[in-house]
């Protein structure tokens, strides 16, 4: 067993830390020639191979791909939880050197703090920043309403269902007002009905809050329903093989799934994915 307390290394990367110049529009996130290679004495594994990706402010982008294609790894690199082996990642013009409050994350496994109530979990980031009690209460109220869990404000996570816990986890991340929300298969463990409800809630939240979202999934329908753009990845080595624009507008209802346009897009993506699914 390795020690728990490994704060992600803040490796100094030489070179420009350009601040956004006035008048020039900068992408919110730019991933520039990023590779991630895991090494040990006996083996070497390329989890990500020269990834280039930009995400605009307010955009909702999904990373879609088979297991092992490095989706989670890419998200962790953007979060700053691990350093890239090569290349660099910039968020709002600043090179990522470690995790920070500007990049919120929602994990697949339920990671609420069990010793804190729903309210306290949502307020955690604000508390870290030393926000006043009044301000914390205001923000917590706002998000409790958004996720429809006002009645559970004083409950501990153990008393909540998986879907409710993920709603709180999303609220906890958003309460920090991050410029980017990174989500790693947040609904992967939920039943289809709950999953559908969560997706609609997320679309609404995204519309209202305008947060930039990168969403990892291997569910094609989920990717189409949620995103404006889908980045398709393949494994061995983890790489981007295609990008697909999703032509649907912002307001999306559940019925969108039954439209011809939706099914057509789905078939198109599945066809693109099939060969890389098989090569595993």
């Amino acid at each position, binding site marked *: *067993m*390795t*020690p*728990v*307390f*490994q*704060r*992600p290394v803040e490796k100094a990367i030489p070179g420009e830390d350009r601040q956004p110049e006035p008048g020039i529009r900068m992408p919110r996130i730019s991933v520039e020639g990023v590779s991630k290679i895991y090494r040990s004495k006996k083996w070497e594994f390329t989890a990500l191979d020269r990834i280039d990706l930009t995400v605009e402010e307010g955009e909702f982008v999904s990373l879609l791909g088979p297991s092992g294609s490095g989706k989670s790894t890419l998200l962790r690199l953007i*979060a*700053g*939880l691990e350093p890239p082996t090569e290349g660099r990642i910039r968020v709002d013009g600043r090179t990522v050197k*470690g*995790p*920070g*409050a500007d*990049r*919120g*994350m929602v*994990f697949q*496994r339920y*990671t609420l*703090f*069990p*010793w*804190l109530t729903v309210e306290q979990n949502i307020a*955690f*980031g604000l*508390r*870290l*920043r030393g926000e006043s009690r009044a301000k914390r209460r205001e923000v917590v109220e706002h998000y409790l309403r958004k996720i429809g869990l006002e009645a559970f404000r004083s*409950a*501990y*996570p*153990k*008393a*909540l269902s998986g879907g409710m816990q993920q709603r709180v986890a999303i609220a*906890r*991340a958003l309460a*920090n007002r991050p410029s980017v929300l*990174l989500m790693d298969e947040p609904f992967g463990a939920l039943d289809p009905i709950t999953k559908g409800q969560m997706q609609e809630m997320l679309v609404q939240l995204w519309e209202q809050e305008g947060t930039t979202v990168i969403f990892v999934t291997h569910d094609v329908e989920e990717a189409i329903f949620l995103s404006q753009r889908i980045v398709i990845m393949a494994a061995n080595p983890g790489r981007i093989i295609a990008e697909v624009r999703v032509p649907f507008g912002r307001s999306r209802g559940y019925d969108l799934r039954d439209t011809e346009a939706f099914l057509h897009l789905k078939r198109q993506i599945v066809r693109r994915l099939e060969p890389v699914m098989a090569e595993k």
Partner: protein
Amino acid sequence: MFSNLSPARYAGLAVGSFVFLAALWVVTSRNGWIDPAFLPSPSRIADELRTELGDPQWWSHVGISVWRVTVGFLLAAALAVPLGILAGAYGWMDALVAPLCEFIRYIPVPALLPLIMVWAGIGEWAKILVIAVGSFFQMVLMVADDTRSVSREWLQAAFTLGAKTRQAFFLVLIPAILPRLTNTVRLVLGWAWTYLVVAELVAANSGLGFAIMKAQRFLRTDTVFTGILAIGLLGLITDRLLVLLHRKAFPYLEGR
């Protein structure tokens, strides 16, 4: 694991096991199957216990034993808990502390007794030291293990919410360890009683261990039994108290 029992049935069976043992004992002594010098009858022991409960001398034995365990244990815990947490949290601390503790842990406490007596004499501190030394090394390792088993994702979540190292340590790692830590403390406290008896059997003129030893010399088996019973009960009481504390302190574990 394979079959679950309702709490009522569990309690019933548990009481049954005590009753069975007691009944066996009663039958044995009624029929005189075993010489009362080796196994006194339950009523004999009840009588003995009654006289002892009214004897200030006996209470002073109990008092001094409880005091030794408490001080020795607290001394060990005060050092072992922080050290264990640091060893579980930081690789370099682990390297410095864990292998050494692993090594010393395998030396049985009785083997260290002569050494401790040479260093600390046979006074009060020697006994306390035996308990402290016996508990310390186990506790460091167990606390380090508790720390290592904390979910890394909680820490990562905290970092992505903007936590600095200090904040992640005190606001996430420590609260995350506490429930397990309380359990560890409870286990080690049980062992501390073992070390107490070791210390008191060898070099003491007070305490429950000494009382048992003295009674044995005079073949007062009934007194030996009450001594053993007293130690067992004291252990049980502290254990239950800590379980209660655990429930009170960590209501969130049940989602309340």
